Structures are given as C-alpha cells and as structure tokens.
C-alpha cells in the first residue's frame, strides 16, 4: 500500500506488509544497489515501493522497456560487483529467458535475485504459467516463500546464496504471496550500498557450452546447501502415515487442513523452501518413513514429477509408497487437477480422501432459504472503467468496421484493452496472445495477399506495449512491406498494473522528468505514416479509422486520451446528467444505447421512471455518452472554478 512500513528502521518490530512489500524490504536489508522491472501483476508493487525509497537509500531503480532489458541492466550491476534485483511476472520471464539461461552459464558476481511472480488462477493474467519449469531449464536455484514473512526472509537469503554460487537465484512468488499481507518482523537496514562498482580487466562473463558442467556442479553445491537449509523443514510425527510435500502458500493450506481434520497424529508436512534443486537426502529420509505422499503445490505438478523421479531412483529404499496429487486427481480445485488456484478446501478434500474420513464444510442445504428468495445471483463481468478512453475507441472501431462493410480482422494484445475481447469491446478482438504479438501476426497476415487473403487487418496495442514489444514487429512489417493498420490505444500510462510510467510518459520510476519518447516519431522514423486522434471525439475517430482502413501499406493510428480515473482525480469534473424530458426511454428505439450497448458503468437505467440515468458517483464526466445519445438527452455541465 505504501513505502512507509518498508522504510522503517526498527529491527525486530512486527509490521503489516504485503508479500511484494516484504520482497522490497528484503532487498533493502540485503543492500541492493540496482532494481529493475517491467510492471506486471501480481508483482508490480515491488519496484513501485523500491523506486519510492531509492533516493533515500542511495540505490538506482528503473521501469525498463521490457523484462529482457530489465534483466540485462540488473545483470550488469551484478557483474560490476553490486547486489541487484529484477522483478517480473511469469509472462515476463518468457521474454527475459534467453538472457537468463545465458547468465546462468556465464555466472554473475554481485548477488542477482530474479523475482518471478506466477498468477495461479490467472486473476490478472491471460494464462497461469508455472515458472519453476523455466527456472529449472535455466539451471537456477528456485526459492518459494509461503507468506510475506518468508518473502522477506528468503529475499535476504537469496542474495547470499547468489553470491556463494556466483549465479542468479530465482525467487518464485505466487499471487497469494505477492498480494497477501501479514506480519513481517523487520531486520536491520544496512548503511547505504558500499563498494565501488568495478569490472576488472581480467574478468570474463562468457556463455559457452563448456560452462554447462559448471552449471551442473553449481546445482550439486546448492543441493548440499539445501539439505541443511532452515527453509526446508519437516513438522509432524516421526513416522507419519501421510507425508504432505508442499511449497509456497500450499504449506499454510496443508497445515490448516490437518488442523481442521484433526489429523496431527497421522500426517506430517515437509515444506520445500528450495524447490530446485531438491534436497534429496532430506526428502528420502522422510519418504522412507511414510506410506502415502500427497503433493500440494501450484500450478503444475513440478514437485510431483521431480520427487516422483527421485522415488523411482530409490524404489527399494522407500517401498511401499504411494504418490498422490494432481496426477492421481486428489489435489483438484473446482476446475480440476492442475488447473487454477488451490486453497485450504482443496487440501482438506485430498487429505480426507486419503485418510478415509468424511468432511462436509456445511450441510448441503445451507443457503437453501436464501436461494428460495433470490433465485439468481447475476455474475459480475469485468468491463472498462467509467470514462475509459478504450470504450470510446472500441465503439469507434466497431462503427468504422460496420461502415467499411468488409470482414476486418482485429488482432489483440495484453493489457486493459484485452477486455475488448468481451462485451466492453463488442467482442471485436479476435486474437490475444502475448505483448506485441498481434502486431507480428498482422505483419504475417499482411503478406498473405498472394495466397488470396484480402481482408483488412487491424492490430491493437496499448502505449506501454508499443515500446515493450511492438517496435520490432513494426520494423519487420516495414522491412517486408506488409499491410495493416496498427491502432495504439494510448492512455499515457501502464493502466492495467496501476499506471506506471513508460518511455512515452516523460517521467522515470524515480520521478525524474525526461524527454518523452514520442511514438509518432518512432514510427515516423521507420517511414510509417502516423495519425493521432482523440477517441473522445468519437465521430472524428470513426472517420479517421474508416479512411485508414481503406489505405494500403503499414499505417499507424494513435487514439490518445489520458487515463480517465487519473484525470478525474486531478481536475474538477463536469457534471453529466440525463434530462428526463428529452430521454424517450424504451420508446426511443435506441434500445437503451447508453446503458445497454455503450455499457459505461455510470450509464444506468431508472426503472421507476423508465428513463436513462447517470450514476454521478461513478461518472468521470468524460461526456462521450452525451455525444452518442440519439436524442441529445444527456447534458454535460462544465464546472466553473467557483462552482460546486
């Protein structure tokens, strides 16, 4: 929530921190000199907090253009002998992976910790990737904290480990750590980063196949460290009937499940703080004493497979032993085994089945009396915020496509505007993959003319995505003479993750004013024609889109309007209301356009009056609905300086 708890110089005090804040605190205590990130949920707040404290703690922090560049910057600081941290979401690791696998081979100097935040259940992601598999591919040590306290503790430990091994260490967090809050006991803040950054003329950090051996040796060394590491721990009876092997928040779920079921005498819990490499001796010791093993982890069966292999290699020592988890179907959330988040109930069900005891959270008819009164509880769909410029942009695009009359293909991207694949964007978006991939696809589709493809192609990206990943695709399209319209939905900020600045914002993570990198100048330098329009002027935006749809070659339309909720906070907003005399209600023939079709949350319906209505607590005063109402029944009243 803020940097205030993270900054406290009060060792031993217990404060409330989120997991993200706790990682930031751990990094401060470890004495980092460099922090970099590209914002991604659920980890965006780590760098936000660090950037707020960089000045007073004397280190450097930046929002990088993408995760690969972020990692390269942090690696450079490490090679110069400094401690550095690089933070990204799971999808970002895919972008940075090429550099990460090479860094692991070349080795590093100052402690480099790579924080990767996975999003089981994809609360704010398009997929639920388990980044541990990629950490394993990169031959990295992977640490998994269970809660904010461990997030702080393990971050501090990770720096020491990275320096001992002379390689990056990966801290794998999940949403239920990043966005959870809990008590964190603070450690000591060191003096400002000491030691002058330096790379000696004899030092070399070269990636070469010869170093594969060193990577393997390093993992063997880490495995030995893991054997006695306090974050790998067992609790429970000496000879448990059921051994739960778990990591991350799964540990807390398992502990509570055991408590709820009263299975303390029969179940032991082995918690892996180091998920890779596995502490094999430690694991074998406990595997020998159990007869059933239950794996509790998110998302994929990573431990299940790796420990399963260990069991297979030591079959005679551990026999008889049965393995349960996602593969057996025992650990299954509502969506099924290996899909979505797990929780305490997931573990309760699995343990109850293995222990052969019944469990029912509530009698099956709980809630019956309520359901009799309220037959249907409407779902809540996500939509664009009130006043969001994207709503106007999608309506303009829908209108322009209808006017054009051809079967226009709309390629999408990752960001708030991914909601454009749903009702908010009139289901226009036909593809959603990765940052910038819609532009690469447009480049490909634009070359299919000789094979008979004649549909117009529109690619949509956000402003932050434009810099992150669209630029190489745009160069490719220009070079290979493709044809499509790139529409940049430019709200001036990385809105999805909490409006962080980007190269076009003119401000850095440290709050320093810098020249904004104009996307029209970037595209213009490639020789691509650029048009800029305000989406709030819907009619003008439709005309621009219609005209550009009919042009050839690669062309760019920037639909630019600052993020609605930010501006609403800064300025006195105009009052927008419906004139009930002019609104014709259902007699109009507009089919309740403002509330039903345009779908802004501020456009509601007054059932008693049978007229449209504006919810003034939600309305940002953008006035777009007023320009679209066929009766002109929506009034925008500008607020004067002295006005209410």
């Amino acid at each position: 929530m803020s940097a205030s708890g993270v900054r406290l110089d009060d060792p031993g005090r217990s404060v409330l921190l989120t997991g993200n804040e706790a990682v930031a605190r751990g990094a401060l205590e470890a004495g980092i000199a460099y922090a970099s990130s590209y914002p991604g949920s659920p980890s965006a707040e780590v760098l936000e907090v660090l950037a707020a404290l960089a000045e007073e703690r004397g280190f450097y922090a930046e929002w990088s253009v993408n995760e690969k560049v972020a990692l390269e910057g942090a690696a450079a600081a490490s090679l110069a002998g400094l401690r550095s941290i690089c933070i990204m979401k799971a999808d970002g690791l895919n972008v940075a992976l090429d550099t990460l696998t090479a860094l692991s081979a070349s080795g590093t100097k100052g402690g480099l910790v790579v924080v990767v935040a996975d999003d089981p259940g994809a609360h704010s992601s398009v997929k639920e990737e388990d980044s541990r598999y990629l950490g394993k591919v990169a031959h990295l040590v992977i640490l998994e904290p269970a809660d904010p306290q461990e997030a702080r503790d393990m971050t501090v430990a990770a720096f020491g480990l990275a320096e001992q091994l002379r390689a990056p260490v990966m801290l794998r967090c999940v949403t239920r750590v990043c966005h959870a809050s809990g008590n964190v006991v603070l450690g000591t803040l060191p003096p400002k980063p000491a030691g002058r950054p330096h790379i000696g003329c004899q030092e070399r950090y070269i990636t070469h196949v010869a170093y594969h051996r060193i990577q393997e040796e390093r993992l063997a060394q880490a495995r030995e460290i893991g054997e006695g590491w306090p974050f790998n721990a067992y609790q429970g009876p000496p000879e448990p009937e059921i051994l739960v092997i778990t990591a991350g928040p799964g540990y807390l779920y398992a502990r509570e499940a055991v408590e709820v079921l009263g299975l303390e005498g029969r179940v032991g819990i082995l918690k892996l703080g180091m998920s890779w490499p596995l502490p094999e001796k430690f694991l074998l010791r406990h595997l020998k004493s159990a007869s059933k093993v239950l794996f509790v982890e998110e998302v994929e069966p990573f431990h299940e497979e790796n420990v399963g292999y260990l069991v297979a290699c030591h079959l005679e020592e551990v026999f008889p032993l049965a393995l349960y988890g996602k593969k057996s179907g025992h650990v299954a959330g509502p969506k099924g085994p290996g899909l979505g988040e797990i929780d305490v109930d997931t573990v309760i069900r699995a343990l109850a089945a293995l222990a052969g005891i019944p469990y029912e959270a509530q009698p099956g008819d709980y809630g019956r009396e309520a359901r009799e009164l309220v037959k249907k509880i409407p779902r809540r769909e996500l939509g664009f915020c009130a006043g969001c410029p994207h709503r106007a942009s999608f309506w303009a695009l829908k209108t322009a496509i209808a006017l054009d009359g051809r079967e226009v293909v709309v390629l999408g991207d990752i960001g708030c505007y991914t909601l454009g694949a749903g009702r908010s964007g009139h289901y226009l978006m036909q593809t959603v993959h990765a940052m910038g991939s819609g532009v690469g696809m447009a480049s490909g589709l634009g070359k299919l003319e000789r094979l008979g493809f004649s549909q117009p192609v529109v690619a949509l990206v956000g402003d932050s995505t434009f810099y992150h990943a669209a630029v190489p695709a745009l160069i490719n399209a220009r070079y290979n003479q493709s044809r499509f319209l790139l529409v940049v939905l430019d709200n001036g900020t990385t809105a999805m993750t909490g409006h962080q600045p980007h190269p076009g914002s003119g401000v850095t993570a440290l709050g320093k004013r810098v020249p904004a990198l104009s996307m029209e100048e970037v595209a213009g330098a490639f020789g691509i024609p650029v048009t800029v329009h305000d989406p709030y002027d819907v009619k003008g935006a439709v005309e621009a889109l219609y005209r550009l749809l009919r042009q050839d070659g690669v062309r760019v339309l920037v639909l630019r309007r600052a993020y609605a909720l930010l501006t609403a906070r800064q300025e006195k907003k105009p009052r927008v209301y419906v004139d009930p005399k002019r609104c014709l209600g259902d007699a109009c023939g507009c089919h309740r356009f403002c509330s039903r079709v345009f779908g802004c949350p501020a456009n509601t319906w007054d059932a008693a009056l049978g007229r449209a209505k504006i919810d003034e607590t939600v309305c940002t005063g953008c006035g777009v609905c007023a320009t679209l109402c066929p009766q002109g029944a929506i009034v925008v009243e500008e607020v004067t300086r002295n006005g209410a």
Partner: protein
Amino acid sequence: MVHNLIITGVGGQGTVLASHVVAAAAVESGFLVAVGETFGASQRGGSVTSHVRISRYRRYGPLIPRHRATIIVGFEPLETLRALLNYGNPLTRVIMNLHPNYPLGVLSGADTYPETQALMEAVRRISAGVLAFNATEIAHHMGSPVAANMVMTGALAGSELLPMAVPAYEKVIGELFSGPARQLNLKAFRAGVLVARGDLPAVWGNQVVKDGGK
C-alpha cells in the same frame, strides 16, 4: 481461535483499503494477521473480496476455507449474499451496505438485479444476524460517497465483533491519510461506529435494520 473476516464489494469501492485498515489495526494491537486479496479486478467492475484472518498465536494462510467466515462485511448487497453463500454458516455475523452497484449484465438488460429487501432478507435467514443500512448515503452526507468504505469499517469496529478497540482503527486511518482526506475518512468511520452502536442521528434519513437473525 481465529477471526475469519470477509470484506466484499465491487472494484473501486475501496474494499482493499478497508481490509488494510482492519489488518493494520490488528497488527498494532499485537495480533497475527493474514490478508488475502486479489487486485486484478480492482476498478474494473468485478467482485473484489478480501479475506482477513486475525489470530493471537498461530499464523494462518491468506484464504478462509469455505463456510468458515465468522464475519462478512458486504459493501454491496448482491456481493454480500454471494460471499455468505460461499463462505458463511449459520453463526456468521453480517454487516451490509444496502446501496446496490449494478453488474454490466444488469445495466445491459440481460440480467435482473434482485430486490434489495429480498437480498437483505435472504442474508438474514442464513446468518446469525445482520446490520444493514445505506453506507453510501451516509458517506454522501459526510462529504463523499467514496468514503462508504470507511463508514462500513466504522460499523465493523463499532459492532465489537473483533478484538480491537475503536481508537486502534482511528490511529491507522489517521496515519494513512493527510489533510481533508483524513478528516473525511475519520468522520465517515465515526459515523459507521455510531450506526453500529445504534446512535445514528435520524436526520440522515437512513433506515438501519439490525436483526438478531434466527
């Protein structure tokens, strides 16, 4: 003993901030706290639910198991019932805001929003008691409907269902905000405390329903 509190509402209603105030007040009062919440849908109209777990000696995970909530604070009637059906039990106490926030499907006419009275009655029937009132309206009287989250937090504090004293919450709110925002939030919080204590002045024209349930 663990207090399992659910604070539920819609993106933009300030549930996350309210859960932070409760959690920080608990930490300040010497308790162990775990809060689980999902930021992804904040400000985009989705349901937003925070789980706050307060205990004296033992750490808990950030998610409350099904049907084990001891208190549900609902910032929106529909979301209150939704949370109660999933996490409630006949012993769960409920504090609910009666001001509805319509889902996109309702705005578009595809769905119908249930009658608020029916929602409140449904909540009453399957819980151990409900304190229901229009917190948004009270917040509006205090200066801004946005402060409804602090009115609800005040009602929770004033209900004394949790082991923290009212001043512990006020200290947190005082430290979180500055200037006019501090005044507004403290005022809204104190109005909520009054509602829970049954001392709400009648001039605000708000109907407060306090029912012991069955």
